[in-house]
């Protein structure tokens, strides 16, 4: 007992010497609870990182003011030189392989996979696959609404990584590619079946080419997608191929943005132009007619992330309000297509307001409003929907 009291006195004197006042809390405080051993270690690590944040930022600003786009070996050389150490030899030759690890995307649609850039996409910004089930006891009808896409990034070569292999000071186009098979399910199905039932199930693969530092835009994506389309009952028989183009320009928030979003709202927009050649041999539960469709058009989508976390621009950021930051979002989508085969145009709009249920952004709940005609089913809808969304 006397030893413990003596030890506490020594700690108090030592801390007082560093300008701290020390007193053991009399009762646990909900806002400042005692920590476990693991939490103490984590807290110390987090505190050191927070203290060092300014230090890292200064090196970032200085280095990028000298070399706007330094390679990995140039960053290593700068940092290790400041630390008085030789740079690591493994990094001096740059990356040897630019292949990305395989990744399974669970998203709403093709645009929601963000050009298959697996490592750069915060899940809180994605819409995610949604499933809604309604059991109407009064009319004895069950309704299932599915909007989702599972896509497996099987093979991908990163264009930014390929670009970093170039000689310092040169800016030449760099190319990347991706191969990703997918299954895409969109539609509503009722039990017992209704005339308004409409659904489509697509399977195919995306062949994506990424051109970095090319013409028109700094970064752009070309995607070729052959697919087979049917409905949830397997009755429809449709073959098609789409060709699409999606540019990225962070300066105008196109496809993403650089820097801190500020405390209230982060936003960006996506633009995808598309040509879709479709041959319908059996109509099934789609609203299409037998024959060919030559769709020309595109999609514009705007995303808002309210009260965004600063963690994307500050790796050492600890959110003071994790229940608020990166939780609320809104998406506005407009699709417009013209069918050259019969000179018909269709437009489809969706507005969505959602809340991310978890801090990792893997699930959310949202309210959607759909209005217009879908080109893949030719069914017109005007409806509100409450949905649970899953993302990966």
């Amino acid at each position: 007992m006397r030893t413990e009291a003596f030890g506490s006195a020594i700690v108090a004197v030592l801390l007082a010497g560093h300008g701290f006042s020390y007193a053991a809390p009399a009762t646990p405080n909900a806002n400042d609870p005692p920590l476990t051993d693991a939490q103490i270690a984590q807290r110390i690590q987090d505190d050191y990182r927070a203290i060092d944040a300014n230090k890292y930022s200064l090196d970032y600003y200085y280095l990028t003011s000298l070399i706007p786009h330094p390679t990995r070996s140039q960053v290593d050389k700068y940092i290790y030189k400041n630390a008085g150490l030789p740079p690591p030899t493994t990094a001096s030759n740059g990356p040897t392989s630019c292949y990305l690890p395989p990744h399974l995307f669970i998203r709403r649609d093709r645009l929601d996979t963000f050009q298959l850039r697996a490592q750069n996409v915060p899940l809180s910004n994605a819409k995610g696959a949604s499933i809604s089930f309604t059991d109407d006891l009064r009319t004895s009808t069950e309704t299932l609404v599915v909007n989702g896409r599972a896509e497996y990034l099987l093979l991908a070569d990163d264009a930014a990584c390929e670009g970093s292999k170039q000689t310092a000071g040169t800016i030449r186009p760099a190319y990347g590619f991706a191969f990703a098979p997918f299954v895409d399910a969109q539609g509503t199905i009722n039990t017992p079946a209704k005339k308004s039932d409409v659904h489509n199930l697509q399977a195919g693969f995306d062949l994506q080419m990424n051109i970095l530092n090319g013409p028109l835009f700094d970064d752009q994506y070309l995607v070729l997608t052959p697919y087979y389309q049917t409905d949830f009952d397997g009755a429809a028989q449709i073959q098609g191929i789409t060709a699409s183009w999606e540019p990225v320009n962070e300066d105008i928030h196109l496809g993403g943005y650089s820097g801190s979003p500020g405390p209230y709202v982060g936003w960006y927009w996506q633009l995808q132009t598309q040509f879709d050649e479709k041959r319908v041999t059996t109509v099934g539960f789609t609203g299409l007619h037998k024959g060919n469709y030559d769709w020309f058009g595109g999609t514009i989508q705007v995303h808002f992330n309210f009260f965004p976390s600063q963690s994307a621009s500050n790796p050492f950021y600890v959110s003071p309000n994790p229940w608020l930051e990166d939780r609320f979002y809104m998406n506005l989508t407009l699709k417009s297509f013209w069918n050259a085969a019969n000179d018909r145009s269709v437009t489809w709009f969706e507005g969505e307001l959602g809340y991310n249920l978890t801090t990792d952004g893997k699930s959310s709940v949202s309210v959607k409003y759909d209005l217009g005609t879908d080109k893949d089913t030719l069914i017109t809808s005007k409806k509100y929907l409450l949905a649970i969304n899953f993302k990966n």
Partner: protein
Amino acid sequence: MFVHRTIDGNEIYYRTEWVITDNYAPDKPHVYAPDTPLSAFWHNLTLEELWARFRSRRDRIDDVLVPYDTTPGHPGISDVTSFRQLYNCVVVAYESAGWTVNLPHVVVP
């Protein structure tokens, strides 16, 4: 009463350099490497002179007062030995005045 405004850390870097050199050039590479020692600052500034320059140029740094003496959590100019430490003083002074200082950028799709 705190204001809630945002400033980029890089802008603070350029303004801090301007206080020392009288030259504000945000489109040029930075003049001072982070670990530049105080002895290598232009004009052979002493710490008191450096602090006086910050005070006389307050209207160009958003009326933010950079302290001379260090207090817990608020580094002052009296302890500065390098540009990195000076930058840290200014960043903390901005934050103490209610500003949000944005740190380095990464791509956020």
